[in-house]
């Protein structure tokens, strides 16, 4: 449904030395540098999928989202939704999408919220009946009733976010882009927003692409994640797969007295494990053993380790999603160096 093909975006950047002196120098003798913020990103998204689009700050996420929403023109490559291309026919393309930028609002700031919806109704040419039906649905999902007559400037951040999501869903888009929809919200409101997103996705088969730095957003919402770093794809796969690969891994960390017999080979032999299930890192007698808890229960692993050596200060840790993502970010960084 959405097809992103070798997308690339370059920015021309003026190199400035720091300070006023540097600024003045750059004014008269600018030196330019071409920076590829997005460097050959490709992925496909199916109808009804919830895709988590993640990456560290400055990875190029927003630039990709802005190209997918028709705001930026790609330097090369293409993105299409149902065959429609924003650089060819922007108007048709944007009718298919709804966009929420967590840090901006598309609501009419000075007027009661309901005014925004009546204007959008005209802009998107929504029929009166359809509009009423739509408002009822969005009201139900996002609970706008309490503040729909209040001026937008008086809304709390959580209310504003719900209002913004409603504004982007009014014209029943097939794809909803959410750029950090839970940023700055408290736990309860985050939960509300997530439930609303799930409901919209389930009831209307709306495809959702969301960027976030919130791990719970990913765990609770996303079927699949695409991770980018330095403008390149780093990971593309289902969350389940990611968890299977990394999620059952546990980490055993301890300081050993004698290191002689603590090698991955000896563990493999002793416990009848395969190479993939275990890895051992030794840093000045501080050992980190990562192992698959599916093939080797934590208790057995502990017993075996204790039988081999005397240990000080032992700790067992889950490799949670956050840890996985941190590792993925790091792997991405290592690869590009």
């Amino acid at each position: 449904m959405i097809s992103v093909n070798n997308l690339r975006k370059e920015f021309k950047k003026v190199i400035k030395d720091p300070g006023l002196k540097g600024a003045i120098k750059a004014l008269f003798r600018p030196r330019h540098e071409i920076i590829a913020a997005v460097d050959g990103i490709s992925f496909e998204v199916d109808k009804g999928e919830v895709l988590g689009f993640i990456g560290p700050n400055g990875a190029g996420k927003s630039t990709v989202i802005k190209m997918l929403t028709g705001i930026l023109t790609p330097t090369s490559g293409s993105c299409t939704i149902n065959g429609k291309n924003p650089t060819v026919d922007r108007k048709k393309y944007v009718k298919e999408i709804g966009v929420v930028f967590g840090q901006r609002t598309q609501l009419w700031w000075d007027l009661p919220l309901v005014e925004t919806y009546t204007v959008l109704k005209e802009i998107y040419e929504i029929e009166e009946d359809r509009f009423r039906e739509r408002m009822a649905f969005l009201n139900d999902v996002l609970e706008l009733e309490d503040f729909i007559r209040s001026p937008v400037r008086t809304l709390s951040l959580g209310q504003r976010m719900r209002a913004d999501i409603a504004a982007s869903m009014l014209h029943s888009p097939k794809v909803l882009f959410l750029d950090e929809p839970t940023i700055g919200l408290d736990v309860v409101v985050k939960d509300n927003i997530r439930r609303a997103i799930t409901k919209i996705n389930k009831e209307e088969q709306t495809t959702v692409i969301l960027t976030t730095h919130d791990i719970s957003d990913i765990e609770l919402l996303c079927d699949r994640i695409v991770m980018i770093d330095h403008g390149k794809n780093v990971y593309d796969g289902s969350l389940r797969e990611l968890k299977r690969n990394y999620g059952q891994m546990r980490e055993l960390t301890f300081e050993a007295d004698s290191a002689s017999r603590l090698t991955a080979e000896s563990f493999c032999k002793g416990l009848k494990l395969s190479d993939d299930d275990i890895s051992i890192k030794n840093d000045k007698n501080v050992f980190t053993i990562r192992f698959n808890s599916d093939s080797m229960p934590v208790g057995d692993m502990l017993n075996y380790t204790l039988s081999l050596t005397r240990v000080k200060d032992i700790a067992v840790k889950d490799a949670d999603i956050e840890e996985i993502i941190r590792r993925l970010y790091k792997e991405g960084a290592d690869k590009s160096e």
Partner: protein
Amino acid sequence: MRRAFKIYRILVAQNLKRLMEYKADFLTGAVSFLIDQAIGIAFIFIIFSQIPQLAGFTFEQIVFIYGFSQIPKGLDHLLTDNLWCVGYFIVRKGDFDKYLTRPINPLFHVIAETFQVDAVGELVVGICLMIYSAPSAGLYITPLSVILFVLVIPFSALIYTAIKIATAAVAFWIKSSGFIIQMVYGMNEFAKYPTTIYSNFIKLIVTFIIPFAFTGYYPCLYFLTGENPVFNIGCTVFISIIFLGISLAIWHKGLSAYESAGS
């Protein structure tokens, strides 16, 4: 087209509602605006009473040219004032994103969003000055000249709009072009007086490069003398269409250079 009008009407209504939302501010604005206009008119009379004649034009004729020049300026000011904001901050702050994610023309959208009531001042002053000066300015009145009078005003206004679109669009490349709009727009001061009082260099500029002379002096020359309608009126129409075409091309090119702002 009908749809465009409808959306325009609705967006303008939103803007007026917004103004009314802050009543104290709106009323203060309205009062200060009236005072401003009264002072403006008084000032014009003080200046003109010192120059009974200029470059062969009588006092009334000068007042007529001045009055006429306010009409296209006011029309453009009334309808397209938001272009200033494009140049000053909408692009720089990345707020232009919003216009690009909606299924209507972004230029139309950004223009329709503001209806600058202040401009009524220029229109009122312009009309008053023309009414005041018309009886003794020796106007050339024929059915054709009346038709051309009505016809030429929107084209003159388009010259303003075209210049603003082109200079505002520069912001897509250099992020902020407010001062560029201001500098170029400021040249409209030359439109209020006969170009014959300027040096050839300035005459050349306000005729062909930044053609504000077509928003005041040249059309008036025809209404005052009946001379050379092909140049005075025809060229106004021609130049406004050419300049609008060029500025739309620049704007369009600018859209693909737009870089938004980080978030």
